[in-house]
Every structure is written in C-alpha cells, then in structure tokens.
C-alpha cells in the first residue's frame, strides 16, 4: 500500500507539469571519464576546478526517493514543536491536501534537493547556480564572501551563500517564506528556517548531500537527512513548466 501510494503520488505530482520529451536523445556528455566500452567510469576521482576547488558541475539527481517522501526517513519523528506536530498530522490525515504544487507553486530547497528529478549545478568562482528541472526554477549560491542578508524579505527559495571547508561545499540559506513544505509528507517550517547543505563529491559519479533544517519556531533542535545524488551522464534537463493548477487539488487530498 505504501509503495502503491508512493507510485500514485509520484505520478500525480508530476502530472500538472508539462514535460517535453528528452531533446538531444543520443547526447554524449563531454568531459566524463569512460571505460573501454564507452560507459562512464563513475568511480573515477572527482574533478577539480582551475583554482583547485572540488568541481560539482554536472547533472545530478537524488537516487533515494524516500527523503522527498519524508525527510525524517532515517531519523524517526523530528523534534517537532506541538503546532508543527499538529500541522503534520493534519496533512497526513488529509492525504496531503493543500500542498503548494496544487497551485503550480514551487518546492523549497529541501524538497527540490531530494526530489528524484534532475538538476544541474553550474559552478563559477563567484556564483554557483542550480538549475532545477522541476518548475524550470533556479537558485543562486553566492561564493564571493558576502554574508546572508539580515531581516530579508521572505521568498520561496531564500538567499544562499556558500564556502568551501576542505573538499566540502557548505551552503547556508535563510529568508524563506513559510509556504513550502520540507517534504511531501508535510513537515512544516516557519520564516525562521535556516537550511545548511553540505555537498561532498567522493568520486566522479556521486554526491553526498547533507541537509540540516534549523527552525527553532517549529523544531526544538536541528534535524535532517543525507541525500545521495547520482550523476546523470548522456542526459539533459527537459523543460518542466507547470500549466495545470486546476486538477491536483481534486486528485489528492480529502
């Protein structure tokens, strides 16, 4: 039942969007180490940028669906404050009614990152851009040393700054609105949310992405998950613009 539900939900969540089929079907991604038979060597060493930093550029996708289903999959119940627990239980009881995607509104950082849909990291020295296939949305992570804004106007994707700690890219984000859910399960957050993403690329084909949610107005202590990402080779993002804001609210929820 759980599996069936996940399959149905997966199909439904994608349905209000209008994906174009893979253009460049037989694409050959350049710059990928390959074996003698032409298959990518995903356990080759991770690449470096010209200035010696780890290079996270490429097309990535979560290889574990369970974290977008429930970010607390590995931790058990998160340390929810009473209102957050009540919100979560209400969402569960209503089968997920009211999710922003019903109205073609986007995901937040944690569920974009853990959604099993591709996204591209475009890495430059001063700015790392993430192009999410879902909703054709992007985020910018500023690497030029600026501090997070104080008292920012809340937004869907927040404000992000990053730095390298050894081979780990550490991204801090604040300034979120309280409209998004942390996962499909309905874990809520407030405008006090801060998200820390720690990216590590142990080899060419894999990223380990630790997501830490710190929202003292919803949870008594920080919690999160470590999402495994796999490199997509010989593949490309396709357009995904949500053009049906009418149906999802009737299909899911009760």
């Amino acid at each position: 039942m759980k599996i069936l539900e996940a399959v149905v939900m997966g199909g439904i969540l994608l349905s209000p969007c209008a994906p174009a089929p893979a253009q460049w079907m037989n694409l050959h991604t350049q710059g990928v180490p390959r074996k003698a038979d032409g298959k990518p060597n995903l356990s080759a060493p991770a690449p470096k940028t010209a200035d010696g930093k780890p290079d996270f550029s490429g097309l990535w996708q979560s290889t574990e669906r369970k974290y977008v289903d429930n970010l607390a999959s590995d931790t058990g119940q998160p340390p929810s404050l009473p209102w957050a627990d009540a919100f979560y239980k209400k969402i569960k009881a209503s089968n997920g009614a009211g999710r922003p995607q019903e109205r073609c509104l986007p995901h937040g950082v944690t569920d974009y990152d853990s959604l099993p849909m591709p996204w591209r990291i475009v890495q430059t020295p001063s700015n790392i851009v993430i192009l999410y296939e879902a909703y054709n949305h992007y985020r910018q992570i500023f690497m030029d040393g600026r501090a997070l804004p104080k008292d920012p106007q809340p937004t869907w994707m927040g404000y992000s700054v990053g730095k390298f700690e050894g081979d780990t890219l550490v991204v801090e984000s604040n300034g979120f609105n309280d409209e998004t859910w942390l996962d499909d399960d309905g874990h809520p957050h407030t405008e006090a949310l801060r998200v820390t993403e720690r990216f590590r690329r142990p080899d060419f084909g894999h990223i380990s992405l630790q997501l830490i949610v710190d929202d003292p107005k919803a949870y008594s202590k920080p919690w999160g998950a470590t999402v495994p990402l796999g490199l997509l080779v010989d593949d490309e993002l396709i357009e995904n613009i949500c053009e049906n804001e009418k149906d999802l609210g009737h299909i899911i929820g009760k």
Partner: protein
Amino acid sequence: MQALKYARSLAYASGARLLMGAMLLGATLAPVSAQWLHYPTPGIPRLPNGKATLAAPAPKTADGKPDLSGIWRQPEDKYFRDLSYGTQPPAMLPWAAKLFQDRKGNLEKGHPSERCLGHGVTDYDTLATLRRFVQTPGMIAILYEGYTHYRQVFMDGRPLPPVTQPSYLGNSVGKWEGDTLVVQTNG
C-alpha cells in the same frame, strides 16, 4: 518593495496604457525585495567616486572569448510592447494578422501571463526586468528574474535537436562569430 518594482517599470513607461500594462504584468508576480541592496558588484571597473565605468572595455574569458557574464536589463520596454518597433510591420500571414488584430482588439486577453505561464524567448529578452548571464565554456545559462525561469544555451558544438514536443523556451545552441555570440533556438 512592490512599489520599488513598479518604479523600475514605470521609470521607462511613456503612456497611461503602458503604465497600466506594466502594473498588471507586475501584479501577477510576487516580487522579491532587493536582497543585498548595498552589495557592490565585484570585478567592475569604477571611477574614483565608486561609480561603475560602463564605457570601459568589455571583458574577455580565460579562453579569449567575450565575457557576457553579469546582470543585464533592457533599458526600455518598447520592443517588449512591439517587437517591430521602428521597423515596417512584419509580413504576417493572414491567420497571424487576424490573431494579432484579435489580441489588439481585446486588450491582450488570453495573454499567457494571465495564467502565470511565463514568456517566450523574444519577450523575455525584451522585458525590462533583470536577467543574469552565467557563462561557462560549455553552456551559457540565462537566469531571468521574470518567473524565476532559466534557459540553457549549449556551446559544446551540439546541433539543434529534431523538434519532437514543442516547449515554451525551446532548445538553444550558440557559437562565436568573432566577438558576436550567435544563438539559434528551435522547438
């Protein structure tokens, strides 16, 4: 901030109807307050008083290509309002002329922005809001402020794909002709 966003559009507005159009187009979006308001952009040639010298030579990338990186905006929106501004009217086929007249006649009812659907290439490019070019050797990303949508322009020599399913923003490939970036888009 909403007001500031309007001011951005209105500074370039020249008529009441445009003003209303700009407000309506703005009103369907949820503008973000200018984050990092007083953050000076690094890497910009400046005068002693700190003002950017926009007439300084254009920068080059490490491999000697023109570097288009940065935040850009269309200084006026006359081409957004009418792409044929300043030229002869385009040679429309009868069906296109009829659709165009219908749209003019009903004050652009049915505009995709009514349904939060975003723009196409020509109206994103001519819209008087911001966009950033992120230039890497294999791909140039365009981040439009409008709708937080992006495009990718592939620079790795791949050909345009056959059109299977049409999309809003199509498929784009680019190449350098001297100092000119030429981008072709289909689908």
